[in-house]
């Protein structure tokens, strides 16, 4: 890591410097009405090399998959193959415009169609839309679809969405944006949905349930078919949050166990880069009951010709144009390289890696729900006096590992959620175990060392309280 302080671009700026030469204007100038002109534009002024060094140095202040093991639970930080990037950078993609007639965008539409077909096969869906730009965007689409379905059937009173207490925060937030109310369903002693509580909540006002399977505890919901039946019998629909699909490719098609609509995060399961926050794709797949409600347009094929078309009862557009196409190219490339056999191997290896780590760490790090895990598991970091999960997480940084997801899910105290993914080798996992065991020892013998961690980073722990009390959100020169 680059430990030297890096100035802000504004501090590197020097009047008169130029980073890009532009062509001379080859047409006569037209005057701009004086009242329209902006008086000043305070952007930095740098030469190209200064810009290059600035961003290169900034990049060196990040942990990333390309540089460190990144076992961040729920985020599926798997390796992003370089072929994905080459595939996405073709001039035929980069220069393609969404408003050119379909007949002259056949390459783009055919790729979308092929990816739709692949994801239909993986999920067991009857149709999919690739328009949503992120998992939460896909969720919002799915919740809109459920609402539209009930409205179309003359049931405006179905406004209650059931959400297990282990769910991602996006689930209830999406419901609010769709005008639905949420009812939290508690977990049972095994970490699954409490069926009695679910039964009690299933009435004529239920719109549906949003269920993450495997759950955010990394556990497969064994009652999934019972849950789906209970909700269906009450007239509701089942939304599947596919954040954890990495455990299930080639293992289980979610639609086979009663999921009516679901999103997959292509930036998790299908290896497109997270990019420091995005862009992603929150593909939505639907069973026949909801297929015509999908957001669109989606790709269709007729007589070997491809076209973009709106499903007949579509909830409408979720964004302008057709989705994060560049991300779709990457996901398609990955699926094409893995193929049928690779899809199953992916999930098998992800689950094997997680269970291996769990088996080797569970003596040192207690686990609240010690069942067989899927692609991730949730341990606890409060086993040593005066040491918290946060301290363990920060100490991992000193050893060159990105911390796991911490303090989530909320139902596990001092949670440490570890997801290795299938792209890590046994050697990497073994080295990680050694470090984790060493930190567990340090937690008992030298808690101060952990509380002061990390020690070798560009900055230490930052005062987030002061940052939030008096926010400085822009450079003030």
């Amino acid at each position: 890591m680059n430990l030297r302080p890096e100035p802000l671009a504004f501090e590197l700026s020097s009047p008169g410097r130029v980073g890009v030469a532009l062509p001379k204007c080859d047409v006569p100038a037209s005057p701009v009405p004086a009242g329209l002109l902006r008086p000043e534009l305070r952007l930095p002024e740098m030469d190209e090399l200064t810009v290059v060094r600035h961003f290169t140095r900034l990049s060196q202040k990040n942990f990333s998959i390309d540089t460190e093991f990144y076992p961040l639970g729920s985020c599926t930080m798997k390796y992003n193959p370089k072929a994905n990037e080459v595939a996405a950078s073709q001039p035929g993609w980069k220069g393609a415009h969404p408003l050119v007639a379909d007949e002259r965008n056949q390459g783009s539409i055919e790729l979308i169609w092929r990816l739709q077909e692949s994801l239909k096969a993986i999920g067991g869906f009857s149709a999919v839309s690739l328009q949503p730009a992120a998992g939460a965007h896909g969720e919002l689409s799915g919740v809109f679809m459920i609402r539209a379905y009930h409205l179309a059937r003359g049931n405006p009173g179905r406004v209650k969405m059931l959400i297990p207490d282990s769910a991602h925060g996006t689930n209830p937030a999406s419901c609010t944006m769709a005008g639905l109310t949420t009812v939290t369903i508690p977990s049972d002693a095994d970490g699954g949905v409490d069926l009695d509580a679910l039964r009690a909540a299933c009435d004529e006002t239920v719109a549906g349930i949003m269920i993450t399977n495997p759950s955010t505890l990394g556990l497969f919901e064994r009652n999934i078919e019972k849950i789906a039946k209970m909700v269906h019998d009450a007239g509701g629909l089942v939304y599947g949050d596919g954040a954890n699909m990495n455990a299930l490719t080639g293992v289980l098609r979610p639609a086979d166990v009663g999921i009516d609509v679901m999103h997959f995060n292509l930036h998790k399961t299908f290896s497109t880069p997270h990019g420091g926050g995005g862009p992603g794709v929150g593909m939505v797949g639907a069973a026949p009951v909801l297929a015509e409600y999908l957001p669109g347009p989606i790709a269709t094929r007729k007589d070997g010709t491809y076209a973009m078309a709106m499903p007949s009862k579509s909830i409408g557009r979720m964004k302008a144009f057709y989705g994060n196409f560049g991300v779709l190219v990457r996901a398609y490339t990955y699926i094409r390289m893995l193929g049928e056999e690779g899809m199953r191997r992916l999930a098998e290896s992800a689950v094997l890696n997680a269970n291996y780590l769990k088996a080797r760490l569970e003596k040192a790090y207690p686990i609240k729900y010690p069942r067989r895990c899927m692609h991730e598991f949730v341990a606890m970091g409060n086993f040593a006096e005066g040491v918290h999960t946060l301290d363990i997480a920060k100490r991992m940084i000193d050893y060159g590992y990105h911390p796991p997801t911490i303090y989530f899910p909320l139902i596990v105290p001092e949670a440490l959620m570890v997801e290795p993914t299938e792209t890590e080798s046994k050697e990497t996992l073994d080295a990680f175990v050694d470090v984790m065991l060493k930190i567990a020892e340090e937690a008992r013998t030298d808690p101060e060392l952990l509380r002061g961690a990390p020690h070798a980073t560009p900055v230490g722990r930052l005062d987030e309280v002061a940052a939030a009390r008096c926010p400085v959100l822009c450079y003030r020169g």
Partner: protein
Amino acid sequence: MPFIPNTDADREAMLAAIGVKSVEELFSDIPAAHRFPKLGLPAGLSELEALREIEALAAKNLSASNSAWFLGAGAYNHFIPAAVPALASRGEFLSAYTPYQPEVSQGTLQAIFEYQSMAAELFGVDTVNASHYDGATALAEAVLMALNHGGSSRPRVMLPAAMHPEYKEVLRTYLAAFSVELDEYADEPAAAAKRVDARTACLVASYPDFEGRVHDLSGVADPVHAAGAVLVVNADPIMLGLLRSPGSMGADIVTAEGQALGNAMNYGGPFLGMMGATQKLVRKMPGRIVGQAADHDGRRGFVLTLSAREQHIRREKAVSNICSNQGLVMLQSTIYLEALGKSGLRAVAELCWNKAHYAAKAIAAVPGYAVAGGTFFKEFVVKTPVPASEIVDRLERRGVVPGLALSRYYPARTHELLVCVTEMNTKAQIELLAQSLKEASV
């Protein structure tokens, strides 16, 4: 497999450590009847084979890389300096997650802070968030923010009739669950602002509008604010390199499609939804926000802040459900703005202005064609002597992409073409366009 390293021998050793006999045993929780289905996917390909296939597909598209390109309408063909993709594609940026651990994410966090600072300057507002999915969703969330701010007694939203039709569609999708009145205005924003009342949450102005017109917004904010409503402006960020910022004219919330700032057209995505607001609205703003902080040694660093607005903390009471955003696209735009800098962005905007005005004159001189009046920046509407869709069809086959036939969105407007001119268009291309339009009219 290249992306799944463990060999059969590794697997055996790991299974032994777990205490199971086979990998299948790990999946005993999965309903047996549905376990390990045949998917029907084709067999996997090598990298070489996969890339060959994808290159062949990409080559089937009409691309701006080998055409004279005058089509915009929400996705724009601008120059991308080499430094932009070269730096943004570094693995340390590309394969990092959301910067939740600030000590090992200072690169991403500082880049976001620099983006927020530059975008706030462009917009003329106090704060900008770390991005939305695209310009359309940024606008939809801005309207939701204004509705939330105004409360239930202000259900009315005033929208320009000449707003991008797909933005309007997205807005309708987002607002479907709420009883909101979408009220379109066709007159000047300053005239429409006089109709803002105590039931109005916000007036939205496009700067420029879908047909390229740059409306004077200087008289809009006062009547909007006097009525207790909020002014939302959706702007072209390249144009803001030259023309007055929305914030300087009183906008409370500013949104934009940031694709033009260093990102390819990419068949419509990934793009960059930009949103900024004045200080008093910052805690109602959705999306991630980075703030400056210090560590115990006083070293400057950056953190995600004001998180209590967001879904992972506030759940059903969050201001939005947004989580993943368009981080890498935002990074590209940050590099773009810093590489071009103060004089470069203005120069790009001036080239667009001058070339668009030259093109408008050249087209207006072609018999049978007329250019719509009013101030414009880089896009303008041309009245055509024959149906515009026929012109587009004929010219595109010859590698000249003349613009958007407005009949795509407005079936009755058969003889109108929306033309976009940027710094990418040479004088020779503009003359080729005028000549081609002349030939297409007979």
